[in-house]
């Protein structure tokens, strides 16, 4: 649950920052209640589906970095496209799919590197604990 909330609020914050930034240059729609709700729905859905994909990968003992990457990109594409098309931000067509690509190209690496950063922090803290243990021994 904590993990899902972390991903939800992490990606929500990043997306809102990007929205605000692009709004300055008229490259994003105006931020209103509907936009905030849309971003929240996208963030929550992505977090839930990512957790589900982790569970499936764990069940089948899949450890390929590429499968994981493809699954994650597909989740982002499907969720963002369905949500944006449902709210009328983009059309339910191939062009609509193309329209969301620039946003995803920006958002995906940011959220991905956020996860990598958190993982690096964890690895670092474990290494420190190992060093401390080795000193005691």
């Amino acid at each position, binding site marked *: 649950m904590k993990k899902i909330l972390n991903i939800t609020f992490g990606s929500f914050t990043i997306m809102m920052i990007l929205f605000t930034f692009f709004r300055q240059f008229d490259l994003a729609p105006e931020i209103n209640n509907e936009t905030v709700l849309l971003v929240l729905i996208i963030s929550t859905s992505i977090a839930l589906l990512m957790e589900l994909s*982790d569970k499936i990968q*764990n069940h089948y003992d899949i450890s390929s*970095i590429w499968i*994981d990457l493809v699954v994650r990109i597909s989740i982002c594409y499907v969720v963002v496209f369905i949500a944006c098309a449902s709210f009328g931000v983009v059309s339910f067509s191939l062009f609509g799919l193309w329209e969301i690509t620039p946003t995803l190209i920006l958002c995906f690496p940011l959220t*991905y590197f956020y996860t990598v950063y958190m993982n*690096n922090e964890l690895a670092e803290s*474990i290494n420190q*604990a*190992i060093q401390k*243990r080795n000193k005691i021994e």
Partner: protein
Amino acid sequence: MKLLIEQSTDIQETEIKIVCGYMDDRLKRLIEQIKLYTFSFVGYSDGISTPIALENIYYFDTVDNTVFIYTKDKVYSSDKKLYELEEYLSNSPFTRISKSCIINTSVVASVRAHFNGRIEATLTNEEKLIVSKHYIQEFKRKFIF
């Protein structure tokens, strides 16, 4: 904490008894260490059964429904199932790191983060094992209380 050692030639089997009120992290760690240095498993290699002390076991891995015991430089098969081992090894430095593997965290030399959210653990014999995302928190708890 009091440490009482009773030594007598009449005692047939060494017994360790812990009397406590609240089991804090330090005590849990102590119990883990006692288990590590007092328990052993029987491993089979070329039809010969060998008792292997827990502290010499690096990890357990399942291949085609058979559990293998990996020591520093030898591999033995085991007649136990992984879920049985997991239950038996609770409150020990061993922890599950994937659907098929249980690792001895006391032989982990270092860890490295992977791009896909997993962690790669390097053992003291230079072997590398992958910790699945699902088991990372449990793995972390073995090092950071």
